[in-house]
């Protein structure tokens, strides 16, 4: 008999796994509680499950779920895992040095549980376009998308709205991202606009909302982990793609294989993964994590720690100007040499970057870095420069980018907000000159 792990068993059929492992049967009506099996589970756990009547069906109790040894993300290298359920992992700055972020270094941000890898069949996968502002409902296979629409390839910055959250005080809940929830890969697919126009967009269309094949972390099949979107003007821009490839290859499983949205410059959560439905709305989309406080900041600035009511929170659109020093790695020691070559990337949401400056004296003085134009709109831009240290000692190299509207990065943290979004404070690396 083949040995099957607990997680594998639960992944295949959680209700059946309940029965096999714990002899558990839950109410078929509510999919909660125990008709049978509560005592078996208690015996295995060594404790009664308080409020077992509320325990959803198809759950692995935490005491067992947490027992898996080690943790590896298939196809990823060097990422720092912030959370292993749901899986969230960021990229250290020095591993983002490539002009185009390789798949193995592209960060992972999950709101829910990805569809099982072996359940994904690109040949039978469909994308349905529907909604009250769609002229009709149409489903496309990936092959049909590839055959019927022109292909486009763009390098697009995809950055989590919460990138940099770890620095806010009072602390905000959620994954405590450092600087690495960002990447700029080369995405290939068809224009979202071409597909929506083929289906037909009614005059009253306001927003699109996506749905994907990931499941809610509670494993409740009736709950959607995340369904966000963008207003029509953003959905219809040239660079908004329905993508099947990253860097010329299949998109990694954790990044949305076989199909996802790739919409640059806005919080990454607008670029839905494992995409299977786009709905054209006649009002602002109201799927999970569009409303409340998710991916929103106070409409008017607030003092740190302020309790902001939902109605005073506004949806984040374009991300702010930002830069990252990707070479050298923070903590570098210079021996016998006082000069240091520095490089990195800068990006500015919907805008372009006008200028990048470097400082070695905590922002007292700045020198201009060389800045390359973007290969296409919404891609990041390469900067490079050389700094010279006056004497031995401890230094920090700071980078500060300015966008095409003249707005630069703050050296302190920008405005506090309840969920800790949009930290674009300038990036710093430590250097010791001996």
């Amino acid at each position, binding site marked *: 008999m083949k040995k099957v792990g607990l997680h594998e068993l639960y992944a295949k059929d959680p209700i059946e796994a309940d029965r096999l492992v714990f002899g558990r049967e839950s109410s078929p009506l509510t999919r909660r509680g125990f008709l049978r099996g509560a005592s078996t589970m208690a015996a295995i756990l060594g*404790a009664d*499950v*308080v*409020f077992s009547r*509320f*325990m*959803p069906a198809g*759950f692995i*109790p*935490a*005491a067992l*779920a*947490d*027992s898996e040894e080690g943790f590896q993300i298939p196809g990823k290298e060097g990422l720092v*895992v*912030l*959370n*292993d*359920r*749901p899986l969230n992992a960021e990229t250290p700055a020095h591993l983002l040095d490539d002009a185009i972020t390789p798949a193995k270094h592209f960060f992972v941000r999950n709101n829910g549980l990805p569809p099982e890898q072996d359940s994904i069949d690109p040949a039978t996968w469909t994308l349905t376009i529907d909604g009250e502002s769609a002229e009709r409902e149409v489903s496309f296979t990936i092959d049909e998308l590839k055959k019927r629409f022109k292909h486009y390839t763009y390098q697009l910055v995809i950055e989590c709205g919460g990138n940099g959250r770890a*620095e806010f*005080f*009072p*602390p905000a*809940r*959620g*994954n*405590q991202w450092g600087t690495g929830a960002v990447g700029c890969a080369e995405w290939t697919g068809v224009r979202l606009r071409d597909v929506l126009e083929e289906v037909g967009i009614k005059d009253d269309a306001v927003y699109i909302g996506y749905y994907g094949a990931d499941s*809610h*972390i*509670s494993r*409740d099949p009736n*709950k959607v982990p995340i369904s966000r979107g963008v207003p029509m003007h953003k959905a219809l821009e040239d660079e908004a793609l329905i993508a099947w490839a990253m860097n010329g290859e299949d998109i990694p499983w954790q990044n949305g294989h076989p199909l996802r949205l790739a919409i640059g410059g806005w919080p990454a959560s607008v670029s839905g993964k494992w995409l299977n439905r786009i709905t054209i709305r006649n009002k602002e989309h109201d799927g*999970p994590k569009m409303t*409340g406080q998710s991916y929103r900041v106070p409409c008017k600035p607030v003092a740190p720690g302020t309790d902001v009511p939902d109605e005073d929170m506004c949806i984040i659109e374009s991300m702010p100007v930002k830069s990252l020093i990707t070479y050298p790695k*923070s*903590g*570098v*020691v210079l021996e016998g040499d006082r000069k240091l070559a520095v490089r990195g990337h800068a990006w500015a949401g919907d805008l372009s970057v006008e200028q990048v400056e470097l400082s070695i004296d905590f922002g007292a003085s700045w020198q201009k870095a060389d800045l390359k134009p973007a290969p296409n709109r919404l891609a990041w831009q390469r900067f490079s420069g050389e700094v010279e240290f006056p004497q031995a000692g*401890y230094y*920090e190299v700071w980078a500060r980018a300015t966008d095409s509207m003249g707005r630069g990065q703050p*050296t*302190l*943290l920008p405005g506090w907000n309840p969920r800790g979004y949009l930290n674009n*404070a300038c990036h*710093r*690396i*430590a*250097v*010791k000159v001996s």
Partner: protein
Amino acid sequence: MKRLMTIGLMLLALPAAARDIDADSGLVIAPGFTETKQNCTVCHSAKLITQSRADRDGWLSMIRWMQKTQNLWPLGPNEPVILDYLAENYAPESIGRRPNLPAKLMPPE
């Protein structure tokens, strides 16, 4: 007397430095640990707790949000136990507007 004072100082330093950590989850072992692990790591990893900091009200608002939107069940008599545990062991530490770079990003000593 000097020795007694030294021991006293060591005890004061204990909560931050030498707390017992649960090998499975990474959670601090302290009163309320079992209730917290049992209820809070069913849907998500304990890493979501250990990487976060909040006061009692902050943790309560997260619990209410999870109950409203994420299928968290009522915690009943365990709720104050869990809240006390989280507020005590995962309280915010003031880091100002810009902390020093963390040790892992600093040059070697």
